[in-house]
């Protein structure tokens, strides 16, 4: 080994990383070379100095204490008073953080107007809540959110039913977390972050660990109260949010401190996305702390609209420091999962696509789908899976409208009207009931796989003109069922289908109307074909085709390195 090789290996040698032979060669050289030996001694001496730092600082943990003080400092009154000047130096050797918290309340109470003083008390309550969980090793939240099961984690809709949303988060020894809605899951296993959308078996992966990803930050904030305090404080200052504190006796007979935050998103009322995501909604947030333990016990969030308040989130279960099953950090993916690209790659003809307008890009995308040219369609959306191919294959554009924007969305919304290719499906019809009429028992796809089983809680009733219905063939009964549905004639529809089907259809129609869709125009047109008797199931299968016109707004954005428009939602 010569001098250059020896010096290149010196650090590895000091660190004990050389294999036996290399180590011996290095030692042999050191014994014969004074210059390299001096270098070795110098490195070892420096290393000894550095090594002494480790044990001395091993237990240093001041992040939370500093962040608490940073937040307290932010809430200090702008103008100086005698009291605030005296208390400014409270850090000075002797007053701990608890005393610091007390001091800030005192400052705020002495110097702020009445309304802000209440805010200071509210912040102090939240700060104590954060301190109570400062040594948190894990947390589990289970709440109910008015949302669509497969939609974004922060998507809210006052007209949707409540669905369960849960967060499991481990802070020690290594940060890991999982958030789950009925049809959407994201897991950060300490190495990477993967989200699965169950409705179309699509997954997205960030190859790194994250503290929050996709649009889950609002839930993480609740799990990490110090973040919540910081956020509410920033907004109280920047956007004039109002905070107050009241005390109430809870159902358990214990005193509760209730912090209420009136949050204004700043998004104009006429904005397309207003009140559709947590971040752009005007809300009233109610945090309830146990006055004795100081722990956060529940959170309720209400959407505040001119028409009145609607509760959209209810969190009543919070488990602190309970062990979380390691299986929670594993996300079972379907074998045929489709992976979405995080960022579209640059194409050889990238400029051609990057220079399109939003409307041109939407047109090109739908036209490619219409031709079943999935390679071309893939330049505008990822992933293109079988479900999308089945849905948009053969589509025809009826019209495209003027693109528009939303305050918090970096892309464009393009209104569209499309005619989807006829979808083949089958309806199962039986007349083995006391009324002897043909009624609908289930829906099946083109390959006779069950899609929806119609549950009849009671037998079909015997109608006053029952005989007229008994004479209808299976095909005629199905035609009459679809006619009644398209006319929104619920009484007539009930003669052919279960009560639950009628109620579900009504709810879907109401939802579509509330979202601004013209349901009369967009109701699928059904063509009814031939009926086939199935001896095994003692039922007829009636072949049907649905032709649907869809009118909606597609979300498309080009804020990616390739600068190409990518479909983001609204299909």
């Amino acid at each position: 080994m010569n001098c250059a090789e020896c010096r290149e290996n010196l650090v590895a040698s000091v660190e004990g990383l050389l294999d036996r032979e290399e180590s011996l060669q290095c030692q042999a050289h050191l014994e014969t070379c004074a210059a390299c030996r001096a270098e070795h001694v110098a490195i070892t001496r420096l290393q000894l100095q550095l090594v002494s730092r480790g044990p001395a600082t091993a237990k240093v943990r001041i992040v939370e204490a500093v962040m608490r003080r940073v937040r307290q400092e932010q809430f200090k009154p702008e103008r100086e008073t005698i009291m605030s000047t005296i208390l400014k130096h409270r850090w000075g050797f002797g007053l701990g953080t608890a005393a610091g918290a007390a001091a800030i309340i005192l400052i705020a109470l002495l110097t702020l107007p009445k309304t802000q003083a209440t805010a200071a008390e509210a912040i102090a309550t939240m700060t104590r809540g954060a301190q109570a969980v400062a040594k948190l090793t894990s947390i589990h939240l289970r709440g109910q959110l008015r949302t669509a099961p497969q939609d974004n984690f922060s998507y809210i809709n006052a007209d949707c039913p409540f669905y369960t949303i849960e967060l499991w988060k481990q802070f020690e020894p290594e940060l890991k977390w999982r958030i789950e809605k009925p049809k959407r899951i994201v897991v950060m296993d300490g190495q990477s972050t993967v989200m699965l959308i169950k409705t179309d078996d699509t997954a997205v992966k960030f190859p790194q660990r994250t503290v929050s990803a996709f649009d889950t930050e609002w839930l993480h904030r609740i799990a990490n109260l110090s973040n919540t305090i910081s956020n509410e404080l920033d907004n109280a200052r920047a956007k004039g949010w109002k905070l107050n504190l009241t005390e109430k006796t809870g159902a358990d007979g214990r005193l509760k401190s209730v912090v209420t935050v009136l949050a204004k998103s700043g998004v104009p009322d006429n904005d397309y996305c207003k009140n559709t995501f947590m971040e752009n909604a005007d809300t009233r947030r109610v945090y309830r702390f146990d006055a004795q333990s100081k722990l956060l016990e529940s959170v309720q969030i209400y959407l505040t609209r001119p028409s009145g308040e609607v509760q959209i989130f209810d969190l009543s279960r919070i488990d602190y420091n309970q062990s979380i099953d390691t299986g929670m950090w594993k996300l079972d993916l379907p074998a045929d999962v489709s992976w979405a690209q995080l960022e579209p790659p640059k194409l050889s003809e990238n400029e051609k696509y990057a220079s399109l307008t939003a409307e041109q890009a939407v047109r090109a995308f739908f036209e490619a789908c219409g031709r079943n040219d999935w390679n071309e369609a893939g330049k505008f959306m990822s992933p293109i899976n079988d479900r999308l191919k089945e849905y948009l294959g053969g589509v025809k554009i009826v019209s495209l409208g003027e693109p528009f924007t939303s305050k918090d969305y970096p892309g464009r919304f393009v209104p569209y009207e499309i005619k989807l290719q006829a979808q083949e499906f089958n309806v199962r019809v039986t007349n083995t009931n006391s009324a002897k009429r043909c009624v609908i028992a289930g829906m099946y796809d083109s390959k006779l796989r069950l899609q929806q089983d119609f549950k009849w809680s009671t037998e079909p009733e015997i109608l006053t003109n029952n005989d007229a219905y008994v004479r209808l063939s299976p095909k005629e009964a199905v035609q009459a069922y679809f006619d009644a549905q398209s006319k929104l004639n619920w009484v007539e529809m009930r003669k052919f289908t279960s009560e639950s089907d009628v109620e579900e259809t009504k709810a879907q129609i109401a939802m579509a109307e509330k979202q601004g869709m013209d349901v009369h125009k967009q109701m699928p047109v059904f063509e009814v074909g031939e009926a086939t008797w199935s001896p095994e199931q003692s039922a007829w299968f009636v072949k049907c085709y649905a032709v649907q016109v869809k009118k909606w707004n597609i979300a498309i954005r080009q804020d990616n390195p390739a600068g190409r428009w990518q479909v983001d939602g609204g299909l």
Partner: protein
Amino acid sequence: MDLTDKEYVERCRDGHQEDFRVLVDRYQKPLFAYLAVRLRDGRQVEEAAQESFVRAFLSLKKLRKPESFYSWLLGIAGRVAKEELRSLKHRQQDCEVTESIMANVADSREDYPLEEAIAALPESYRQVILLRYYEGNSCQEIATRLDLPLGTVTKTLSRAYALLRQELAARESAETTVNQTQLP
């Protein structure tokens, strides 16, 4: 993986105050070591470390070179430590132990330059030194954490040692010159 100091400073300035915790986490240990040789008493050191970070946070807008956050933080910590020593001396004028404490502090002065020299390193070298000696990671663990080959980590350490020695030698030489000129 993580952002650079400059990027975190800029995010804090842009209103993401919660990101300041990353900078605190990154430098709490070396800052503690820096203050420990000046203040000795563990509680004083912790209070001074907290105060240094809080002052740094409140003055972030004044930081001209965000990439030099750590050396700027050490400057603030140095002033905080001086204030405390002055205050301590003042408070303990009637107390006989003052002299012995001050003597201890004086004894430790030869350790002063190490953290300052680390602060003067380019960020990539400083990061490896902090991970190795203040966070207690092995070279293999650093390689995994930074997603680098093991050989790159040992080479970076080697270069960091060379730069540290240069820096310490320069400081020693400057100090010697100052001391000599002060001689009568």
